[in-house]
């Protein structure tokens, strides 16, 4: 069972992800609506899989990825962003993210992407 944390500033997207992930493989340990909260939650509950939005208030996704990876390099981060820009994707991967999907996404997209990062 993987411990999943959802980071997104949109409540809608958080609920959407929470509804769509595969409950047999993941256990939701909490959601955060900005980067700073995500770091706090990470330190409290140490998830091993994180879905990460990129444009968020307080601490943006790229910095958040960097901080999470510095705390635990084995953290598997899936970026879920509306920014369909290759350079931001490249940057997220450089910082240590494992996967990248763009909004809007389907339930199957999300499941496949999550499966792929934990299979690695």
């Amino acid at each position: 069972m993987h411990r999943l944390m959802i980071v997104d500033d949109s409540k809608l997207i958080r609920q959407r992800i929470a509804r769509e992930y595969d409950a047999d493989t993941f256990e939701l340990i909490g959601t955060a609506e900005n980067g700073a909260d995500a770091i706090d939650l990470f330190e409290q509950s140490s998830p091993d899989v994180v879905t990460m939005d990129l444009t968020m208030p307080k601490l943006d996704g790229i910095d958040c990825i960097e901080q999470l990876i510095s705390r635990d390099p084995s953290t598997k981060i899936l970026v879920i962003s509306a920014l369909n820009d290759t350079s931001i994707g490249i940057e997220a991967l450089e910082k240590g993210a494992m996967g990248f999907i763009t909004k809007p996404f389907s339930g199957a997209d999300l499941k496949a992407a999550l499966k792929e990062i934990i299979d690695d």
Partner: protein
Amino acid sequence: MSKVFGRYAAIIATVVVFLTLVLGVLGLNFYTSFQTEVTAEAVNIAGRQRMLSQRTAKSLSNLNYKFYTQDDLSIDIAELKAASALFDRSLKAFTNGGETNSTKGGAAFLEQVTSDRGREILSQANELWGPFYDRLSTMVDLAERSSLPISGQRQLSGLIADNVSYANSNINQILKLMNDLTNYQEGQATASADTSRLIQTLGIIASLVCFAIILFLIFGQLQRADRKALLAQRETRKIFETVDQGLFLIDRDFNMGSQQSKELERIFSSGFLAGKNLHTFISDIVSSTDLEKVLRYVRLLFDPHKKQKLLQDLNPLKKLPIQVQDQGELTSKYLRFSFSRVENNGKIEGVLASVSDISNEIRLENELIEETKRSEKQLEMISVLLSADANMLPEFIKSSDRTYEKINQIFRNPARNSSEFKIKADSVLTLVHATKGESSLLGLTIISETCHEIEDKIDQLKLKNDIGGDDFLSLTILLDRLISTNEQMKSVMSAVAGHSQSPQTIDSGETQNLIKLATDVSRRQHKEVAFSTGGFDMPHLAPDLRKNILSLASQLVRNAISHGIESSDIRKTLGKSEQGSVKLCLLQENSGKLILSCEDDGAGINFESIKLEASKNGLIKAEDIDRVSSKQLLQLMLKNRLSTRTAADADAGRGAGLSVLGSISDQLGARVSLQTRQGVGAKFIISIPKTAPEMATKKLTEASYA
């Protein structure tokens, strides 16, 4: 590993055989040299036997002499004893095998002589030597005694004499036998040396053969490998030459590999790019921000933790617009780069980049978008047309076209200062406002919205203190849009009209026939003609009338193309467009009168040459030639066969064209008029009265049947 072994099995086996042979030859060599030593010793010992037999005989004779001279016997006794003992020992060693003194000191082992010849010699020798040695031994034993009684002296003297006599009769035979033995041994040695030499030679030959086989096999293997490598190389080259993608490898240091496909050079219109660094290569074609992105991306490709599939989605060079200098001309292209890892045993060794020119795809894509946009617009327009009051549309288009022209003229009128520009804007506002009202009445929201936009802009403009011509830019753009909308409406309307006609019109075939006629004639006459026709869809016309009108029309078309329109070469020199134009039109006026007109932009009618022709035919008198009017000439042409064409062909030249026209017109009671200017064109207009005589009777007949 086992594969490698398999491939070289033959070579390895031969090498093993070769080594065994070499070792065998070496071993044999060692053995034979030992054997040679042994046989050589045997020969020496056999030779020594000869000497020993002589010495034995000599010391015996010395002993005999000294015995009589009463001298000391001890030296000779010792000599005799040693020589005979050694002879005996050696002979026994030859006979039974065993040790004897070596000729070089120490002991030597002799093998038993087993051959028949050897045994014969030895048995003869033993036969002679055995009793002799026994007697010698007895004699020596006696002689060695320190004090010998007289009887002993006598016995000794007898033994000596006995031995001497034995020796005298037999020692030569013994010597001879020993000589034979020596020769025999020598023979044996030579024979065994020969054998071993033969074996050695054979061994060496076998190893040489083996070695040759090894060389052959290795050479063959190398050749095969070379051939394979060459074939593979050729294949790779072929692939690289023919593949329609630019292919190259990138290593960890971003260096581009030495093998590159031909297409790469074609795409970049430059020479060999091998060994270049990706950095320098890419920096020539992309912006610096893109360059950084590409380099970061390629670096990620070398990171084994990043999934290749994911990276493919992030490829920053999926669609890269570039400008390439091609034969001095700057052309723009769209390229697609794709990258994939080259892995070996799970290790990323490099990245294979492929570049394809997707300009065509992009162009098609754009065209498709453009086409979709256009059809969307048309669809929108059709829905507008459907929602608008269709009868009022043509009127609206006409009036709004005029309005737009007026607005454009207002823009065009010079304005010297801000207030003049303001007046300009105001007058535009009034015009636009009217159009806006009309269009919204008809439900043409596209137009009314644009008009509204213009009003808004003008309102904003008037708030400014200082207005200049450039403030009108946006207004002109909106005017352009309004004009385009009208153009689109017109094209949609004609398309809609065209579509709605075809199913019900009985004689669209006739229109088609006229078009076909025009194309056929212009092809035959080698002329380029734009032919347009309309109005022939009048299903209510009586079939006969229609037939006549059609004959008139075809005559007019033939005439216009073969006489009127000049060849495109001539038209070019005249400064006209290469393509001539012929417009054929049938109209029915409200009164019911039919107007058939045919207009061309050709040479016009040269009345002077007609006059000449007419006077030649005697139709006009020479003295009247200057007084005859063009109207009269036309009548002449319609009534007589007159042609200015020198050669007759299928289309014109017999002068029949206009006379046919004239006769049919007469039949229909039609009036033919002609407008023409030389070099500019001609227009025939035939007005056919509502009740053509023939038509009237037809109608009557039809009515009586009804």
